[in-house]
Protein backbone atom coordinates (compact mmCIF):
# COMPACT_ATOMS: atom_id res chain seq x y z
CA UNK A 1 0.00 0.00 0.00
CA UNK A 2 2.85 2.33 0.82
CA UNK A 3 4.37 1.88 -2.64
CA UNK A 4 1.02 2.70 -4.22
CA UNK A 5 0.88 5.75 -2.02
CA UNK A 6 4.35 6.85 -3.04
CA UNK A 7 3.56 6.40 -6.73
CA UNK A 8 0.39 8.49 -6.56
CA UNK A 9 1.75 11.17 -4.24
CA UNK A 10 4.78 11.65 -6.47
CA UNK A 11 2.47 11.96 -9.46
CA UNK A 12 0.34 14.58 -7.69
CA UNK A 13 3.35 16.56 -6.48
CA UNK A 14 4.84 16.56 -9.98
CA UNK A 15 1.62 17.63 -11.66
CA UNK A 16 0.19 20.13 -9.22
CA UNK A 17 2.13 22.95 -7.52
CA UNK A 18 -0.54 23.35 -4.87
CA UNK A 19 0.08 19.87 -3.40
CA UNK A 20 2.08 19.81 -0.16
CA UNK A 21 3.28 16.89 1.95
CA UNK A 22 4.14 17.29 5.63
CA UNK A 23 5.60 14.56 7.78
CA UNK A 24 6.46 14.49 11.46
CA UNK A 25 9.82 12.76 11.13
CA UNK A 26 8.57 9.55 9.53
CA UNK A 27 8.94 8.10 6.04
CA UNK A 28 12.47 6.68 6.06
CA UNK A 29 13.14 5.13 2.64
CA UNK A 30 9.73 6.28 1.45
CA UNK A 31 10.26 9.97 0.82
CA UNK A 32 14.05 9.96 0.49
CA UNK A 33 13.93 11.72 -2.87
CA UNK A 34 11.34 14.30 -1.89
CA UNK A 35 13.63 16.94 -0.33
CA UNK A 36 15.53 17.33 -3.59
CA UNK A 37 12.55 16.78 -5.87
CA UNK A 38 9.94 18.83 -4.01
CA UNK A 39 12.00 20.80 -1.52
CA UNK A 40 9.60 23.70 -1.33
CA UNK A 41 6.49 21.61 -0.84
CA UNK A 42 7.74 18.64 1.15
CA UNK A 43 8.52 19.34 4.77
CA UNK A 44 9.57 17.25 7.74
CA UNK A 45 8.18 19.49 10.46
CA UNK A 46 9.87 17.53 13.21
CA UNK A 47 8.31 15.42 15.92
CA UNK A 48 5.31 17.65 16.56
CA UNK A 49 2.11 16.23 15.13
CA UNK A 50 -0.18 18.83 16.69
CA UNK A 51 1.65 21.70 15.06
CA UNK A 52 1.85 19.72 11.82
CA UNK A 53 -1.96 19.56 11.62
CA UNK A 54 -2.20 23.27 12.46
CA UNK A 55 0.36 24.13 9.81
CA UNK A 56 -1.48 21.95 7.29
CA UNK A 57 -4.66 23.91 8.12
CA UNK A 58 -2.85 27.20 7.55
CA UNK A 59 -1.56 26.00 4.18
CA UNK A 60 -5.02 24.74 3.21
CA UNK A 61 -6.58 28.07 4.21
CA UNK A 62 -4.20 29.59 1.65
CA UNK A 63 -5.44 27.28 -1.10
CA UNK A 64 -3.04 24.36 -0.82
CA UNK A 65 -4.00 20.68 -1.08
CA UNK A 66 -2.17 19.16 1.86
CA UNK A 67 -1.25 15.60 2.78
CA UNK A 68 0.18 14.78 6.17
CA UNK A 69 1.83 11.44 6.77
CA UNK A 70 2.66 9.46 9.87
CA UNK A 71 2.08 6.35 11.96
CA UNK A 72 -1.61 6.08 12.77
CA UNK A 73 -1.76 6.80 16.53
CA UNK A 74 0.47 9.84 16.23
CA UNK A 75 -1.34 11.47 13.29
CA UNK A 76 -4.84 10.77 14.61
CA UNK A 77 -4.91 10.49 18.39
CA UNK A 78 -2.09 12.72 19.59
CA UNK A 79 -3.37 15.61 17.49
CA UNK A 80 -7.06 14.73 17.60
CA UNK A 81 -8.19 18.14 18.74
CA UNK A 82 -6.24 19.93 16.01
CA UNK A 83 -7.93 17.62 13.50
CA UNK A 84 -11.30 18.46 15.02
CA UNK A 85 -10.94 22.23 15.27
CA UNK A 86 -8.39 23.12 12.59
CA UNK A 87 -9.47 20.72 9.82
CA UNK A 88 -12.98 19.40 10.34
CA UNK A 89 -14.72 22.53 11.64
CA UNK A 90 -13.59 24.68 8.68
CA UNK A 91 -13.80 21.65 6.29
CA UNK A 92 -10.30 22.02 4.87
CA UNK A 93 -8.85 19.78 2.14
CA UNK A 94 -6.19 18.09 4.24
CA UNK A 95 -5.68 14.34 4.03
CA UNK A 96 -4.22 12.48 6.97
CA UNK A 97 -2.33 9.44 5.73
CA UNK A 98 -1.95 6.97 8.56
CA UNK A 99 0.38 4.04 8.02
CA UNK A 100 0.50 0.99 10.22
CA UNK A 101 -3.29 0.61 10.48
CA UNK A 102 -4.53 -1.90 13.05
CA UNK A 103 -1.88 -4.36 14.18
CA UNK A 104 0.57 -3.73 11.32
CA UNK A 105 3.28 -2.78 13.79
CA UNK A 106 2.47 -5.73 16.01
CA UNK A 107 5.89 -6.40 17.56
CA UNK A 108 6.33 -2.73 18.46
CA UNK A 109 3.69 -2.99 21.13
CA UNK A 110 0.46 -1.21 21.95
CA UNK A 111 1.74 2.36 21.48
CA UNK A 112 2.13 1.69 17.76
CA UNK A 113 -1.10 -0.27 17.27
CA UNK A 114 -4.21 1.51 16.10
CA UNK A 115 -7.48 -0.04 17.13
CA UNK A 116 -9.43 3.15 17.91
CA UNK A 117 -8.56 5.37 14.95
CA UNK A 118 -11.51 4.54 12.70
CA UNK A 119 -13.94 5.23 15.52
CA UNK A 120 -12.26 8.53 16.33
CA UNK A 121 -12.17 9.71 12.73
CA UNK A 122 -15.74 8.44 12.10
CA UNK A 123 -17.21 10.61 14.79
CA UNK A 124 -15.81 13.86 13.37
CA UNK A 125 -18.32 15.82 11.28
CA UNK A 126 -17.11 16.61 7.73
CA UNK A 127 -14.46 13.85 7.85
CA UNK A 128 -14.22 11.15 5.17
CA UNK A 129 -12.74 7.85 6.35
CA UNK A 130 -11.05 5.62 3.78
CA UNK A 131 -9.49 2.21 4.49
CA UNK A 132 -8.47 0.73 1.16
CA UNK A 133 -8.16 -3.05 1.09
CA UNK A 134 -5.15 -3.38 -1.16
CA UNK A 135 -2.64 -1.43 -3.25
CA UNK A 136 -5.06 -1.10 -6.16
CA UNK A 137 -7.78 0.42 -4.00
CA UNK A 138 -5.15 2.70 -2.47
CA UNK A 139 -4.34 4.21 -5.86
CA UNK A 140 -7.99 4.78 -6.73
CA UNK A 141 -8.68 6.19 -3.28
CA UNK A 142 -5.88 8.73 -3.70
CA UNK A 143 -7.21 9.80 -7.10
CA UNK A 144 -10.62 10.31 -5.52
CA UNK A 145 -9.10 12.28 -2.63
CA UNK A 146 -7.65 14.80 -5.07
CA UNK A 147 -11.24 15.79 -5.94
CA UNK A 148 -12.40 15.90 -2.33
CA UNK A 149 -13.05 19.33 -0.85
CA UNK A 150 -12.91 18.44 2.85
CA UNK A 151 -10.68 16.56 5.30
CA UNK A 152 -9.97 12.88 4.81
CA UNK A 153 -8.40 10.10 6.82
CA UNK A 154 -6.65 7.46 4.71
CA UNK A 155 -5.77 4.37 6.75
CA UNK A 156 -3.10 2.23 5.19
CA UNK A 157 -1.12 -0.83 6.20
CA UNK A 158 2.54 -0.90 5.30
CA UNK A 159 3.98 -2.73 2.34
CA UNK A 160 3.68 -6.15 0.80
CA UNK A 161 -0.02 -6.77 1.43
CA UNK A 162 -1.76 -9.19 -0.93
CA UNK A 163 -3.28 -7.59 -4.02
CA UNK A 164 -6.91 -8.58 -4.39
CA UNK A 165 -8.04 -6.72 -7.46
CA UNK A 166 -6.66 -7.91 -10.77
CA UNK A 167 -8.70 -5.56 -12.94
CA UNK A 168 -8.98 -1.77 -12.99
CA UNK A 169 -11.63 -0.45 -10.61
CA UNK A 170 -13.29 1.80 -13.15
CA UNK A 171 -16.36 2.40 -10.96
CA UNK A 172 -14.35 3.28 -7.85
CA UNK A 173 -15.97 6.06 -5.87
CA UNK A 174 -15.74 7.27 -2.29
CA UNK A 175 -18.75 5.92 -0.41
CA UNK A 176 -19.33 3.04 -2.79
CA UNK A 177 -18.31 -0.43 -1.63
CA UNK A 178 -16.87 -2.97 -4.05
CA UNK A 179 -18.40 -6.42 -4.40
CA UNK A 180 -15.37 -8.64 -4.78
CA UNK A 181 -17.39 -11.82 -5.16
CA UNK A 182 -21.12 -12.18 -5.46
CA UNK A 183 -22.84 -14.66 -3.12
CA UNK A 184 -26.21 -15.49 -1.67
CA UNK A 185 -26.37 -16.80 1.89
CA UNK A 186 -23.80 -14.88 3.85
CA UNK A 187 -22.04 -11.56 3.16
CA UNK A 188 -18.56 -10.82 4.46
CA UNK A 189 -17.92 -7.09 4.49
CA UNK A 190 -14.31 -6.19 5.17
CA UNK A 191 -12.46 -2.93 5.43
CA UNK A 192 -8.82 -2.01 5.05
CA UNK A 193 -6.06 -4.51 5.50
CA UNK A 194 -8.47 -7.29 6.48
CA UNK A 195 -9.72 -7.59 2.91
CA UNK A 196 -7.28 -10.38 1.92
CA UNK A 197 -8.26 -12.40 5.02
CA UNK A 198 -11.93 -11.88 4.22
CA UNK A 199 -11.44 -13.08 0.66
CA UNK A 200 -9.58 -16.11 1.93
CA UNK A 201 -12.27 -16.84 4.51
CA UNK A 202 -14.83 -16.61 1.70
CA UNK A 203 -12.90 -19.20 -0.28
CA UNK A 204 -12.71 -21.54 2.74
CA UNK A 205 -16.48 -21.28 3.14
CA UNK A 206 -16.97 -21.86 -0.57
CA UNK A 207 -14.85 -25.01 -0.23
CA UNK A 208 -17.39 -26.15 2.34
CA UNK A 209 -20.33 -25.57 0.01
CA UNK A 210 -21.38 -22.10 1.16
CA UNK A 211 -22.08 -19.19 -1.19
CA UNK A 212 -20.56 -16.19 0.58
CA UNK A 213 -20.55 -12.71 -0.89
CA UNK A 214 -17.38 -10.72 -0.22
CA UNK A 215 -17.41 -6.94 -0.16
CA UNK A 216 -14.62 -4.41 0.25
CA UNK A 217 -15.97 -1.46 2.21
CA UNK A 218 -13.03 0.84 1.58
CA UNK A 219 -15.07 3.84 2.67
CA UNK A 220 -16.20 3.56 6.26
CA UNK A 221 -17.60 7.09 6.26
CA UNK A 222 -19.79 7.90 4.44
CA UNK A 223 -20.86 4.27 4.64
CA UNK A 224 -22.50 2.74 1.55
CA UNK A 225 -26.03 2.48 2.91
CA UNK A 226 -27.48 1.43 -0.42
CA UNK A 227 -25.17 -1.55 -0.71
CA UNK A 228 -25.82 -2.66 2.87
CA UNK A 229 -29.57 -2.45 2.32
CA UNK A 230 -29.20 -4.45 -0.89
CA UNK A 231 -27.08 -7.11 0.82
CA UNK A 232 -29.54 -7.34 3.70
CA UNK A 233 -32.34 -8.03 1.21
CA UNK A 234 -30.43 -11.01 -0.20
CA UNK A 235 -28.37 -12.52 2.63
CA UNK A 236 -29.50 -13.83 6.02
CA UNK A 237 -26.22 -13.06 7.73
CA UNK A 238 -23.88 -10.10 7.44
CA UNK A 239 -20.37 -10.41 8.76
CA UNK A 240 -18.05 -7.45 9.26
CA UNK A 241 -14.28 -7.86 9.40
CA UNK A 242 -11.87 -5.16 10.54
CA UNK A 243 -8.52 -4.84 12.30
CA UNK A 244 -9.95 -2.39 14.80
CA UNK A 245 -11.76 -2.34 18.09
CA UNK A 246 -15.28 -3.79 18.19
CA UNK A 247 -16.62 -0.36 19.10
CA UNK A 248 -17.06 2.45 16.61
CA UNK A 249 -15.59 0.97 13.44
CA UNK A 250 -17.02 -0.76 10.39
CA UNK A 251 -19.19 -3.17 12.40
CA UNK A 252 -20.80 -0.32 14.30
CA UNK A 253 -21.41 1.64 11.10
CA UNK A 254 -23.10 -1.38 9.47
CA UNK A 255 -25.11 -2.03 12.63
CA UNK A 256 -26.32 1.57 12.55
CA UNK A 257 -27.60 1.16 9.00
CA UNK A 258 -29.37 -2.10 9.84
CA UNK A 259 -31.00 -0.52 12.88
CA UNK A 260 -31.93 2.70 11.10
CA UNK A 261 -33.53 0.75 8.28
CA UNK A 262 -35.14 -1.80 10.60
CA UNK A 263 -33.56 -4.66 8.66
CA UNK A 264 -33.90 -8.08 10.26
CA UNK A 265 -30.54 -9.62 9.48
CA UNK A 266 -28.08 -11.45 11.69
CA UNK A 267 -24.92 -9.39 12.18
CA UNK A 268 -21.64 -10.85 13.32
CA UNK A 269 -18.67 -8.57 13.94
CA UNK A 270 -15.11 -9.80 13.66
CA UNK A 271 -12.98 -7.19 15.40
CA UNK A 272 -10.80 -6.73 18.45
CA UNK A 273 -12.74 -7.43 21.58
CA UNK A 274 -12.20 -4.10 23.36
CA UNK A 275 -8.75 -4.87 24.72
CA UNK A 276 -5.13 -3.83 24.20
CA UNK A 277 -2.45 -6.30 23.17
CA UNK A 278 -0.25 -6.88 26.20
CA UNK A 279 2.28 -9.05 24.39
CA UNK A 280 4.58 -8.53 21.43
CA UNK A 281 3.85 -10.46 18.29
CA UNK A 282 3.64 -10.29 14.54
CA UNK A 283 0.51 -8.96 12.90
CA UNK A 284 -0.48 -12.52 12.02
CA UNK A 285 0.19 -13.74 15.56
CA UNK A 286 -1.89 -10.98 17.09
CA UNK A 287 -4.69 -11.56 14.59
CA UNK A 288 -4.79 -15.19 15.65
CA UNK A 289 -5.07 -14.08 19.28
CA UNK A 290 -8.12 -12.01 18.39
CA UNK A 291 -9.73 -14.60 16.11
CA UNK A 292 -9.07 -12.47 13.07
CA UNK A 293 -7.39 -14.91 10.68
CA UNK A 294 -9.18 -16.31 7.61
CA UNK A 295 -9.28 -19.70 9.30
CA UNK A 296 -10.73 -18.29 12.54
CA UNK A 297 -13.42 -16.45 10.60
CA UNK A 298 -14.36 -19.41 8.40
CA UNK A 299 -14.39 -21.80 11.36
CA UNK A 300 -16.63 -19.51 13.37
CA UNK A 301 -19.04 -19.06 10.48
CA UNK A 302 -19.31 -22.80 9.89
CA UNK A 303 -20.39 -23.42 13.50
Amino acid at each position, binding site marked *: MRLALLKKLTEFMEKDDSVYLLTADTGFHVFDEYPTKFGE*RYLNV*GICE*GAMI*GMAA*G*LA*LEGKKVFVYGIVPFVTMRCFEQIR*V*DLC*YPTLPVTIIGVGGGLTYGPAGMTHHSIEDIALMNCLPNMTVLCPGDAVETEYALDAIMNLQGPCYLRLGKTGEAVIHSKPLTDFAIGKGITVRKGSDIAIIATGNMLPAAVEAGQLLRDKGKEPEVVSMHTVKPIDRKLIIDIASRCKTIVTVEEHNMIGGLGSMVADVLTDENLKVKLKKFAINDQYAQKAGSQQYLRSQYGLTAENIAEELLK
Partner: protein
Amino acid sequence: MNIEELKAIATRIRKDVVTMHQIGTNVGSAMSAADIIAVLYFNVMNISSPDDPERDRFVLSKGHAASALYSALAQKGFIDSALLKDYQQNGSDLTGHPCQKNVPGIDASTGSLGHGLPIAAGMAMAAKRDNKKHRVFVIIGDGECQEGSVWEGAMLAVQQKLDNLTIIIDANNLQGYGRAEDIQPIETLGPKFEAFGWSVKQIDGNDIGQLVDTLSKTPFEAGKPSAVIGRTIKGKGIAEMEDVLGWHYFSVPKDKLEKFIEELDGNK
Protein backbone atom coordinates in the same frame (compact mmCIF):
# COMPACT_ATOMS: atom_id res chain seq x y z
CA MET B 1 -4.55 56.93 11.57
CA ASN B 2 -3.05 59.00 14.41
CA ILE B 3 -2.77 58.01 18.06
CA GLU B 4 -5.91 59.87 19.16
CA GLU B 5 -7.96 58.28 16.40
CA LEU B 6 -6.64 54.84 17.33
CA LYS B 7 -7.54 55.47 20.98
CA ALA B 8 -11.07 56.27 19.85
CA ILE B 9 -11.20 52.98 17.91
CA ALA B 10 -10.01 51.10 21.01
CA THR B 11 -12.63 52.85 23.13
CA ARG B 12 -15.31 51.92 20.60
CA ILE B 13 -14.11 48.30 20.82
CA ARG B 14 -14.38 48.40 24.63
CA LYS B 15 -17.83 49.97 24.55
CA ASP B 16 -19.00 47.32 22.08
CA VAL B 17 -17.38 44.61 24.20
CA VAL B 18 -19.12 45.56 27.45
CA THR B 19 -22.41 45.91 25.59
CA MET B 20 -22.01 42.50 23.93
CA HIS B 21 -20.93 40.85 27.17
CA GLN B 22 -24.28 41.15 28.85
CA ILE B 23 -24.13 37.49 27.89
CA GLY B 24 -21.23 35.07 28.13
CA THR B 25 -17.79 35.08 29.71
CA ASN B 26 -14.36 36.55 28.93
CA VAL B 27 -15.18 40.24 28.91
CA GLY B 28 -11.91 40.98 30.75
CA SER B 29 -9.87 39.14 28.11
CA ALA B 30 -11.46 41.11 25.27
CA MET B 31 -10.84 44.43 27.09
CA SER B 32 -7.20 43.49 27.57
CA ALA B 33 -6.64 42.88 23.83
CA ALA B 34 -8.63 45.90 22.58
CA ASP B 35 -5.64 48.21 22.00
CA ILE B 36 -3.62 45.56 20.17
CA ILE B 37 -6.55 44.77 17.89
CA ALA B 38 -7.24 48.48 17.25
CA VAL B 39 -3.63 49.14 16.25
CA LEU B 40 -3.40 46.05 14.06
CA TYR B 41 -6.61 46.68 12.13
CA PHE B 42 -6.42 50.47 11.85
CA ASN B 43 -2.71 51.17 11.64
CA VAL B 44 -0.41 48.22 11.06
CA MET B 45 -2.14 45.68 8.87
CA ASN B 46 -2.75 46.18 5.19
CA ILE B 47 -6.41 45.28 5.19
CA SER B 48 -9.16 47.19 3.46
CA SER B 49 -11.36 44.30 2.38
CA PRO B 50 -11.78 40.79 3.79
CA ASP B 51 -11.86 39.45 0.22
CA ASP B 52 -8.53 40.89 -0.90
CA PRO B 53 -6.15 37.91 -1.33
CA GLU B 54 -3.13 40.20 -0.94
CA ARG B 55 -4.20 41.61 2.43
CA ASP B 56 -2.50 40.79 5.73
CA ARG B 57 -3.90 37.86 7.76
CA PHE B 58 -4.90 37.83 11.40
CA VAL B 59 -5.35 34.89 13.77
CA LEU B 60 -6.87 35.47 17.18
CA SER B 61 -5.32 32.48 18.88
CA LYS B 62 -6.85 33.58 22.19
CA GLY B 63 -10.25 33.12 20.58
CA HIS B 64 -12.04 34.00 23.80
CA ALA B 65 -11.41 37.67 22.99
CA ALA B 66 -13.64 37.33 19.91
CA SER B 67 -15.98 40.15 20.88
CA ALA B 68 -13.15 42.69 20.53
CA LEU B 69 -12.37 41.32 17.08
CA TYR B 70 -16.03 41.45 16.01
CA SER B 71 -16.12 45.11 17.00
CA ALA B 72 -13.00 45.82 14.92
CA LEU B 73 -14.50 43.99 11.94
CA ALA B 74 -17.69 46.01 12.31
CA GLN B 75 -15.72 49.27 12.51
CA LYS B 76 -13.85 48.23 9.36
CA GLY B 77 -17.23 47.67 7.70
CA PHE B 78 -16.58 43.96 7.09
CA ILE B 79 -19.67 43.01 9.07
CA ASP B 80 -22.83 44.92 9.89
CA SER B 81 -22.55 46.65 13.28
CA ALA B 82 -26.15 45.69 13.94
CA LEU B 83 -24.98 42.06 14.24
CA LEU B 84 -22.99 42.82 17.39
CA LYS B 85 -26.07 42.92 19.56
CA ASP B 86 -26.71 39.26 18.65
CA TYR B 87 -23.32 38.12 19.98
CA GLN B 88 -23.72 34.62 21.45
CA GLN B 89 -27.49 34.80 21.02
CA ASN B 90 -29.47 31.88 19.60
CA GLY B 91 -28.82 31.54 15.87
CA SER B 92 -26.12 34.23 15.74
CA ASP B 93 -22.98 33.83 13.59
CA LEU B 94 -21.02 35.62 16.32
CA THR B 95 -20.07 32.66 18.48
CA GLY B 96 -18.18 33.16 21.72
CA HIS B 97 -15.05 31.96 19.94
CA PRO B 98 -14.74 32.96 16.28
CA CYS B 99 -15.70 30.72 13.36
CA GLN B 100 -13.89 31.29 10.08
CA LYS B 101 -16.86 30.05 8.04
CA ASN B 102 -19.37 32.37 9.70
CA VAL B 103 -17.81 35.80 9.62
CA PRO B 104 -16.04 37.67 6.79
CA GLY B 105 -12.55 38.62 7.92
CA ILE B 106 -12.08 35.80 10.41
CA ASP B 107 -9.08 33.98 8.99
CA ALA B 108 -9.03 30.94 11.30
CA SER B 109 -11.49 29.31 13.66
CA THR B 110 -10.04 29.48 17.14
CA GLY B 111 -11.04 29.00 20.73
CA SER B 112 -9.01 25.98 21.69
CA LEU B 113 -5.78 27.40 23.07
CA GLY B 114 -2.46 26.70 21.40
CA HIS B 115 -3.84 26.25 17.88
CA GLY B 116 -3.31 29.69 16.38
CA LEU B 117 0.45 29.83 15.99
CA PRO B 118 0.85 26.61 13.97
CA ILE B 119 -2.04 27.65 11.70
CA ALA B 120 -0.51 31.09 11.22
CA ALA B 121 2.86 29.47 10.50
CA GLY B 122 1.17 27.47 7.73
CA MET B 123 -0.35 30.65 6.30
CA ALA B 124 2.99 32.45 6.46
CA MET B 125 4.76 29.50 4.88
CA ALA B 126 2.26 29.52 1.99
CA ALA B 127 2.91 33.25 1.48
CA LYS B 128 6.66 32.63 1.36
CA ARG B 129 6.30 29.77 -1.09
CA ASP B 130 4.04 31.82 -3.34
CA ASN B 131 6.30 34.90 -3.13
CA LYS B 132 3.46 36.95 -1.67
CA LYS B 133 4.13 40.07 0.35
CA HIS B 134 1.30 39.85 2.86
CA ARG B 135 2.05 39.20 6.54
CA VAL B 136 0.42 37.18 9.29
CA PHE B 137 -0.30 38.51 12.79
CA VAL B 138 -1.35 36.44 15.78
CA ILE B 139 -2.52 37.37 19.27
CA ILE B 140 -1.74 34.76 21.90
CA GLY B 141 -2.50 34.83 25.61
CA ASP B 142 0.24 34.60 28.22
CA GLY B 143 -1.51 31.68 29.90
CA GLU B 144 -1.95 30.14 26.46
CA CYS B 145 1.84 29.88 26.21
CA GLN B 146 1.59 26.98 28.65
CA GLU B 147 0.26 24.90 25.74
CA GLY B 148 3.00 22.78 24.18
CA SER B 149 1.72 23.38 20.65
CA VAL B 150 2.64 27.09 21.01
CA TRP B 151 6.26 26.03 21.27
CA GLU B 152 5.93 23.50 18.47
CA GLY B 153 4.65 26.37 16.34
CA ALA B 154 7.43 28.65 17.60
CA MET B 155 9.98 26.08 16.49
CA LEU B 156 8.38 25.67 13.06
CA ALA B 157 8.26 29.42 12.43
CA VAL B 158 12.00 29.63 13.01
CA GLN B 159 12.72 26.51 10.98
CA GLN B 160 10.91 28.13 8.04
CA LYS B 161 12.44 31.61 8.66
CA LEU B 162 9.00 33.17 8.73
CA ASP B 163 9.84 36.84 9.09
CA ASN B 164 6.40 37.58 7.66
CA LEU B 165 4.91 36.28 10.93
CA THR B 166 4.42 38.36 14.08
CA ILE B 167 2.90 37.26 17.34
CA ILE B 168 1.69 39.60 20.03
CA ILE B 169 1.39 38.07 23.47
CA ASP B 170 -1.42 39.70 25.37
CA ALA B 171 0.23 39.29 28.77
CA ASN B 172 -2.44 40.33 31.25
CA ASN B 173 -1.12 37.93 33.88
CA LEU B 174 -4.54 36.50 34.67
CA GLN B 175 -5.65 33.16 33.36
CA GLY B 176 -8.63 30.95 34.08
CA TYR B 177 -7.92 30.22 37.69
CA GLY B 178 -5.12 32.44 38.85
CA ARG B 179 -1.99 34.40 37.99
CA ALA B 180 -0.19 33.39 34.80
CA GLU B 181 3.12 34.19 36.50
CA ASP B 182 2.47 31.50 39.12
CA ILE B 183 2.70 28.91 36.35
CA GLN B 184 5.22 30.61 34.09
CA PRO B 185 6.81 33.97 35.01
CA ILE B 186 6.04 36.49 32.29
CA GLU B 187 9.63 37.78 32.37
CA THR B 188 10.68 34.36 31.06
CA LEU B 189 8.48 34.48 27.95
CA GLY B 190 10.77 36.83 26.03
CA PRO B 191 13.95 34.85 26.70
CA LYS B 192 12.13 31.64 25.81
CA PHE B 193 11.10 32.97 22.41
CA GLU B 194 14.60 34.37 21.90
CA ALA B 195 16.07 31.00 22.74
CA PHE B 196 13.79 29.47 20.09
CA GLY B 197 15.24 31.91 17.58
CA TRP B 198 12.63 34.68 17.54
CA SER B 199 13.29 38.37 17.57
CA VAL B 200 11.54 39.75 20.64
CA LYS B 201 10.42 43.14 21.94
CA GLN B 202 8.70 43.87 25.25
CA ILE B 203 6.22 46.74 25.51
CA ASP B 204 3.14 48.00 27.31
CA GLY B 205 0.41 46.26 25.34
CA ASN B 206 -2.23 48.81 26.31
CA ASP B 207 -0.14 51.76 25.13
CA ILE B 208 -1.29 52.69 21.64
CA GLY B 209 1.88 54.69 20.92
CA GLN B 210 4.20 51.84 21.86
CA LEU B 211 2.09 49.37 19.90
CA VAL B 212 2.24 51.56 16.78
CA ASP B 213 5.99 52.14 17.13
CA THR B 214 6.74 48.47 17.67
CA LEU B 215 4.33 46.75 15.30
CA SER B 216 5.16 49.07 12.42
CA LYS B 217 8.76 47.85 12.51
CA THR B 218 8.25 44.15 11.79
CA PRO B 219 10.15 42.07 11.02
CA PHE B 220 12.50 43.14 13.78
CA GLU B 221 15.23 41.07 12.11
CA ALA B 222 15.29 39.71 8.57
CA GLY B 223 14.84 35.94 8.47
CA LYS B 224 13.33 35.71 11.95
CA PRO B 225 9.72 35.70 13.14
CA SER B 226 8.86 38.58 15.49
CA ALA B 227 7.37 38.33 18.97
CA VAL B 228 5.97 41.24 20.96
CA ILE B 229 5.37 40.61 24.64
CA GLY B 230 2.71 43.18 25.46
CA ARG B 231 2.06 43.70 29.15
CA THR B 232 -1.65 44.36 29.49
CA ILE B 233 -4.33 44.68 32.14
CA LYS B 234 -7.24 42.32 32.07
CA GLY B 235 -10.48 44.32 32.02
CA LYS B 236 -8.54 47.45 30.99
CA GLY B 237 -10.68 50.58 30.95
CA ILE B 238 -13.17 49.79 33.71
CA ALA B 239 -11.77 50.32 37.21
CA GLU B 240 -14.02 47.66 38.74
CA MET B 241 -12.89 45.13 36.15
CA GLU B 242 -9.17 45.83 35.94
CA ASP B 243 -6.93 42.97 37.01
CA VAL B 244 -9.80 41.08 38.65
CA LEU B 245 -9.96 37.35 37.94
CA GLY B 246 -13.72 37.22 38.31
CA TRP B 247 -14.20 39.21 35.09
CA HIS B 248 -12.90 36.23 33.18
CA TYR B 249 -16.33 34.79 33.98
CA PHE B 250 -18.83 37.52 34.82
CA SER B 251 -21.29 38.98 32.34
CA VAL B 252 -21.97 42.71 32.50
CA PRO B 253 -25.09 43.28 34.61
CA LYS B 254 -27.73 45.42 32.92
CA ASP B 255 -27.67 47.99 35.73
CA LYS B 256 -23.93 48.53 35.32
CA LEU B 257 -23.76 48.89 31.57
CA GLU B 258 -24.51 52.61 31.44
CA LYS B 259 -21.94 53.35 34.16
CA PHE B 260 -19.30 51.31 32.32
CA ILE B 261 -19.98 53.11 29.03
CA GLU B 262 -19.68 56.48 30.78
CA GLU B 263 -16.43 55.41 32.37
CA LEU B 264 -15.03 54.35 29.01
CA ASP B 265 -16.11 57.64 27.44
CA GLY B 266 -14.36 59.48 30.27
CA ASN B 267 -11.18 57.47 29.72
CA LYS B 268 -10.88 58.35 26.05
